[in-house]
């Protein structure tokens, strides 16, 4: 029986790695509970992704498609997810903790009177009870929680779960009948989306991230960070100090309240290593810190540290990378 529902918001005909990680989480949970999992995809147009979604090992792929769903307004999406969750009798409903899920899932959980665990990093089966581990206190404490409601609502940090490997297209694909928008939808109007311009990989999913902090000193100097990122095919990130100083758009902020990243390689340049920044990158596999202050706390968490002037080192590093990358 299908007892886990994965919710995936889809934009631009793209199935992000986060969805594959969420499916892996669902597979684990379904394994604990002796069931299977389905995927509910939501978006304006899902025609380009349904075949891909059918390869993720789900029993069924449910498509909620509509022109007004692309705006991802919580007032519209929460009742749709609630309807599917309840009519399907799912016990666990999960999404990657994207900004859409962070917005919509608490509203959806409240609607069905369910308890919710946010940004889960591990799940286990303790004597028949699903137990979710989630970071608290800016990542300084891991709290294990259990949910006592008929439906358990969960968001996960996709960086903490290995992506499922797509297999044969085995899932049945069905359309979901959409309920009419509720009155509250008339009280919120979507005015537009301003995309932060970047030709680089998605920060949350990149294999390498180069982040700059206060030490970079200006918006213009951030080009040094970008040059190294481009030489490595990496994403660019930033500390809160760099964002607050106006060096870079806030969408690039890594930290407790910004993006949570866990790339293979994280290079922190001119970043002191404040707690809330470390909370957003400490699951990275290899961390490099470049800072001229040898007392900077970032060196306490870096695998490789370089006490040096970033303005001298970054151009050298970029040149050296270009050399070996040919």
């Amino acid at each position, binding site marked *: 029986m299908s007892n886990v529902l994965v919710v995936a918001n889809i934009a631009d005909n793209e199935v992000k790695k986060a969805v594959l990680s969420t499916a892996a989480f669902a597979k684990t949970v379904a394994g604990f509970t002796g069931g299977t999992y389905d995927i509910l995809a939501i978006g304006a147009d899902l025609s380009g992704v349904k075949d891909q979604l059918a390869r993720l090992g789900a029993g069924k792929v449910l498509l909620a498609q509509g022109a007004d769903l692309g705006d991802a307004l919580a007032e519209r999406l929460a009742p749709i997810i609630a309807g599917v969750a309840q009519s399907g009798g799912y016990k666990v409903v999960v999404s990657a903790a994207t900004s859409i899920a962070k917005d919509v899932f608490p509203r959806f959980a409240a609607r069905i009177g369910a308890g919710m665990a946010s940004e889960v990093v591990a799940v286990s089966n303790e004597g028949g009870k699903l137990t979710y581990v989630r970071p608290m206190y800016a990542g300084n404490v891991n709290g294990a929680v259990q949910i*006592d409601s008929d439906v358990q609502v969960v968001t996960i940090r996709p960086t903490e779960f290995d992506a499922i490997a797509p297999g044969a297209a085995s899932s049945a694909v069905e359309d979901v009948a959409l309920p009419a928008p509720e009155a509250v939808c008339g009280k919120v109007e979507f005015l537009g989306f*301003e995309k932060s311009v970047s030709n680089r990989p998605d920060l949350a999913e990149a294999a390498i991230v180069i982040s700059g902090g206060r030490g970079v000193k200006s918006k213009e100097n951030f080009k040094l960070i970008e040059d190294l990122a481009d030489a490595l095919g990496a994403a660019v990130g930033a500390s809160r100090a760099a964002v*607050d100083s106006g060096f870079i758009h806030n969408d690039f902020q890594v930290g407790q309240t910004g993006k949570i990243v866990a790339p293979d390689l994280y290079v922190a340049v001119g970043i002191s290593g404040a707690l809330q920044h470390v909370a957003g990158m400490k699951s990275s596999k290899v961390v490099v810190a470049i800072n001229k202050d040898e007392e900077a706390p970032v060196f306490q968490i870096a695998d490789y540290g370089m006490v040096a002037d970033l303005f001298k080192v970054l151009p050298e590093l970029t040149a050296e*990378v270009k050399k070996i990358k040919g």
Partner: protein
Amino acid sequence: MKILVPMKRVADPDNANKVKISPDGTKVTSEGLEAKPNPFDEYAVETALRILEDGVGSGNLRGEVVVVTVGGDDTVRQVRQCLAMGADRGIIVQGDDDALDSTIVANVLAKIVEKEQPNLIIAGKQAVDGDSNQVAQALAEILGWPQATFAGKVEVPQDLSSATVTREVDGGAAKVKVQLPAVISVDLRIVSPTGVQNNVAAGKDYQDGPRYASLKGIMKAKKKKVDTMTIADLGVDQTLKVRSVSFTAPPQRSAGVIVETVEELVAKLRDEAKVL
């Protein structure tokens, strides 16, 4: 116009690495750490004040800002801190942090909304201890109100009938307009000098960040009204839906090696860490 701001008392977030887990793993303790209003909630108070300021005299508001908290009696200090910033009134709903979850808090707040009939709720996007980021959205659902979460900018027309909110989301900024009453949750950038535009106090130069309480503000705050009630008074079910089972310290990263040259760094990344 009445704005309700929910506030949670938290242990000093700048020292979050000093919280301790009890030896049996059942409790997190923050003894020795200063208790503060959750930073995002302080931003919410600042946002509410900026929305209502008339631009004529400092601190003149075109309405009332009510701060509500769910917590122990000693939260009165953090409530008074918000009143010293310029909020008008406080409400403390007595409750023990360990016996609360987002559902209970959202239901308590919904009852306060029923009593107070605010036009707008401005909340911090998350408390920096629990890091759950749920209450504002759950409250909006319970009330049947529109929501605008993770606000980096808010603009209100002079008649305060709606709010145009720039939301900080993955990949950029989403702009929505909500009719009031509504729930807005605020992100960091809301307290930048231009985070709030109320079209009355135009051109007012705000400092970056929430305002400090003036001495006068602190004196005034002592006389402001703070009501106290219990969760039971409000008739809210106190059964936990999310139960903490245990707490553990996450694995810590440890310091590695210091390299001297760029060549050495690249060689190590390529040959030892194998990430290049």
